[in-house]
């Protein structure tokens, strides 16, 4: 398929802009070289983007159990709320008393999210999850620095963590200490005790963790970290599994980020915009970044103006439509769906941890691969031929040949049954025609892109021939 730049025809254009009704103004400096913008008429543009839409698989097309990503269906009403002109037409520099409605959105959303997370303060500045982690760990750093405690140089991260956790700790100037998981997938308490000391700045943890297991020792874990003088950071990546049931604040965490785009319904996966709301306990509030739309002075700003404000609008609309009963019900159904699907698939593929899971589960295909020669990648590619988005592959790293499924609460029993049937079919196919699966997908627009060449010689910019 051609890029929009390649479809450009000199002189072709659309009459989308109204006639100028303000006096013309000459800029003091003008660009000398042409902009090279594509020249197309309206239907060229419309067809181009429609074609792109048809070539991808999104939550609006079908099942999308991409583990760890919470690809739930996003209710249209949240989009409608975010499209209200009172929100979209606001200028970032508008005086505070002219954007009272927007401030009210932030204050109300902060109140609800504090209630859900068990925190006392909230900022909507960070642009997404990893940015939220960065902000949260800076809170921890600021707390120690403000006390003159300079000896704390280490952040503890379990080996099942998302890669962004150690990256965040390193970006904040900390040494990362990896703690191994116990065989049950939870944090190994003895390994944690051995890692803790007067140099511990904090712990970063996702609970339920990346293999979909709620750590039964969570109160003991946070107690041990506090006892060593460190703080506890909650990565809200998996909050969808527990919201309305248990609060990170009550588990002993001091600060948290929540992926509003993920847990509270903003279409995501295409690179944003998202929002990584950061919450904290009372004693950290003084270090929160300030925002153009929130009360109080705040500390520094980690992003321009009010962050990705419209994502906050969607989150608030989502929370208000679900309400006090709906929020925990969404979590309950996310967990129920994951367990239902795991039980149905169990007859063929093997879960990495054979126990009740939370919102997601991991299949371990290492034995299956030894038996048939068919890898997790081959199965994932074959799922594309069956109209399903593949699960997350080869993650977490502690499981070999991993496939990680997160069906989310918005899928019906029929969808889950159908997915389980596809898995069963592929299990059988791997035993009769593994060769066919090595070359899957057979019916997709793109089969197996050359990831190695793409990583070694990336072409990230179009250049006019």
């Amino acid at each position, binding site marked *: 398929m051609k890029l929009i730049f390649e479809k450009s025809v000199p002189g072709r254009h659309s009459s989308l802009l109204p006639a100028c009704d303000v006096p013309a103004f000459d800029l003091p400096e003008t660009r000398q070289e042409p902009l090279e913008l594509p020249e197309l008429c309206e239907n060229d543009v419309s067809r181009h983007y429609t074609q792109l839409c048809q070539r991808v698989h999104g939550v609006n097309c079908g099942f999308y159990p991409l583990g760890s990503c919470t690809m739930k269906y996003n209710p249209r009403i949240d989009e409608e709320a975010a499209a209200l002109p009172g929100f979209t037409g606001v200028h970032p520099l508008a005086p505070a008393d002219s954007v009272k409605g927007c401030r009210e959105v932030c204050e109300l959303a902060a109140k609800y999210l504090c209630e859900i997370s068990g925190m006392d303060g909230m900022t909507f500045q960070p642009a997404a999850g990893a940015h939220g982690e960065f902000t949260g760990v800076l809170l921890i750093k600021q707390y120690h620095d403000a006390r003159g405690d300079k000896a704390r140089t280490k952040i503890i991260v379990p080996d099942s963590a998302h890669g962004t956790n150690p990256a965040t700790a390193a970006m904040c100037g900390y040494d990362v200490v990896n703690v191994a998981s116990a065989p049950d997938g939870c944090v190994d308490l003895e390994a944690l005790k051995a890692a803790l000391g007067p140099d511990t700045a904090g712990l970063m943890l996702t609970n339920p963790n990346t293999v979909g297991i709620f750590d039964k020792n969570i109160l003991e874990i946070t107690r041990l970290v506090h006892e060593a003088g460190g703080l506890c950071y909650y990565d809200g990546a998996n909050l969808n599994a527990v919201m309305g049931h248990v609060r990170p604040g009550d588990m002993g965490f001091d600060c948290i980020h929540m992926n509003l785009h993920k847990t509270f319904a903003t279409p995501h996966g295409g690179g944003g915009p998202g929002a990584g709301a950061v919450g904290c306990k009372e004693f950290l509030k003084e270090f929160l970044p300030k925002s153009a739309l929130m009360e109080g002075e705040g500390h520094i700003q980690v992003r321009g103006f009010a962050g990705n404000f419209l994502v906050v609008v969607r989150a608030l609309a989502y929370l208000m439509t679900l309400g006090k009963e709906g929020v925990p019900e969404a979590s309950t159904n996310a967990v129920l769906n994951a367990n239902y699907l795991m039980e149905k698939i169990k007859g063929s593929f093997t879960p990495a941890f054979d126990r009740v899971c939370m919102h997601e589960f991991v299949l371990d295909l290492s034995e299956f691969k030894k038996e048939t020669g068919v890898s997790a990648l081959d199965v994932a590619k074959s799922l594309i031929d069956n109209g399903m988005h593949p699960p997350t592959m*080869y993650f977490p790293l502690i499981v070999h040949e991993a496939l990680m499924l997160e069906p989310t609460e918005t899928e019906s029993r029929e969808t889950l049954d159908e997915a389980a049937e596809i898995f069963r079919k592929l299990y059988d196919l791997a035993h009769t025609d593994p060769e066919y699966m090595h070359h899957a997908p057979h019916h997709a627009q793109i089969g197996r892109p050359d990831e*190695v060449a793409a990583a070694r010689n990336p072409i990230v910019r179009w250049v006019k021939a």
Partner: protein
Amino acid sequence: MTINPDLKYTKSHEWVKEEDGVAVVGITDFAQDALGDVVFINLPEAGDEVVAGESFGDVESVKAVSDLLSPVSGIVQAVNEELIDAPEMLNSDPYGAWIIKVEQVNDYEELLDADDYEALCAEEG
């Protein structure tokens, strides 16, 4: 999978060979196979200190980023800069593509001989 009988090995799949008091370090055939196609490598600089059992760099494959753990403590004498432009040498010739040379070696990680390393690979494979 090949194992070179003349080398010593770490449990984390690096190999080491001592030549005139200098330790030459690379990753094993087992390691490159488990990693898959290597696309980037981060190397230390000559003169840097390395500590046995601790990271001295990392390799990125299409699957994951993995730390390189040093089999010895000492000072980096040289790094194989060819690998920066051609990290695929780690896949095609793991025992030829040395990564760093370490001098002033003063400590060792627990090292395995070829037989013990073969047994470890069999266990993990």
